């Protein structure tokens, strides 16, 4: 009797173990998916760029994006964008847009400029969640777009890290 009763018990244990294994695998899958979903991708950055540019393609040149190539702390990365423009009423920069590849959102910031700005140079500090490419796009008064990109290596990430006790 005991030998009869043991197989169902063993099988249920096996079932349980199998099921537990599946559950664990599933949980790992889900956590992978959620981690992936909380990050932007290079494709998302391109989509965000095209939302602003429409069908036009940015040309390279005229814009200079200054970022340190190696950053220790991604919580405050200094950044300077300078655009080669006379900033006259006829020819000036109307906007500068900043994008990134791997933060939770592809947008970083947009700046609006006009001839009264005088000089198309803007500096700020940003957060970077990972080593990635940052892109600056300048929109000119004649409707053209110019861009520059910089690759940054980040050793301590920002944005998504949890609060430490």
């Amino acid at each position: 009797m005991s030998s009869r009763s043991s197989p169902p018990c063993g099988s249920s244990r096996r079932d349980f173990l199998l099921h537990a294994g599946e559950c664990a695998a599933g949980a790992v899958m889900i956590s992978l998916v959620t981690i992936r979903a909380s990050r932007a991708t290079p494709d998302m950055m391109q989509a965000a760029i095209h939302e602003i540019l429409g069908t036009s393609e940015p040309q390279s040149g005229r814009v200079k994006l200054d970022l340190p190539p190696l950053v220790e702390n991604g919580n405050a990365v200094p950044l300077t964008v300078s655009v080669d423009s006379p900033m006259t009423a006829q020819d000036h920069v109307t906007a500068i847009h900043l994008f990134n590849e791997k933060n939770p959102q592809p947008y970083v910031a947009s700046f609006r400029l006009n001839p009264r700005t005088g000089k198309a140079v803007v500096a700020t500090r940003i957060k970077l969640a990972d080593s990635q490419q940052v892109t600056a796009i300048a929109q000119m008064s004649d409707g053209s777009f110019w861009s520059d990109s910089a690759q940054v290596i980040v050793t301590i990430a920002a944005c998504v890290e949890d609060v430490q006790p």
Partner: protein
Amino acid sequence: MTRPLIKVPQTAKRGEIIEIKTLISHPMETGYRTGLNGLTLPRDIIQRFVCIYNGTEIFSAAFSPAIAANPFLSFFTVAAESGTILFQWRGDNGFSVTETADITVL
């Protein structure tokens, strides 16, 4: 509310291009971080910044959570005439700070 730090030259020559620097105290909570209780911390950021020189907008910015805490900005303007430069930050949870700086153009 702490006052923002603003650096504007007190005097400038007419037509001179001057640099303006601003720094404001703000956590810029991204809305993607988990707090000590395991819950996601709600987003709290500055969304808009605008700089108005004697009634004319000279520079504005739209921020995302990717701007570092205590947002710093540096930009330029043409010293056109003596007057007041107004700075305004607006953001989540009704955050609104306005500050002015005077400039004398010789």
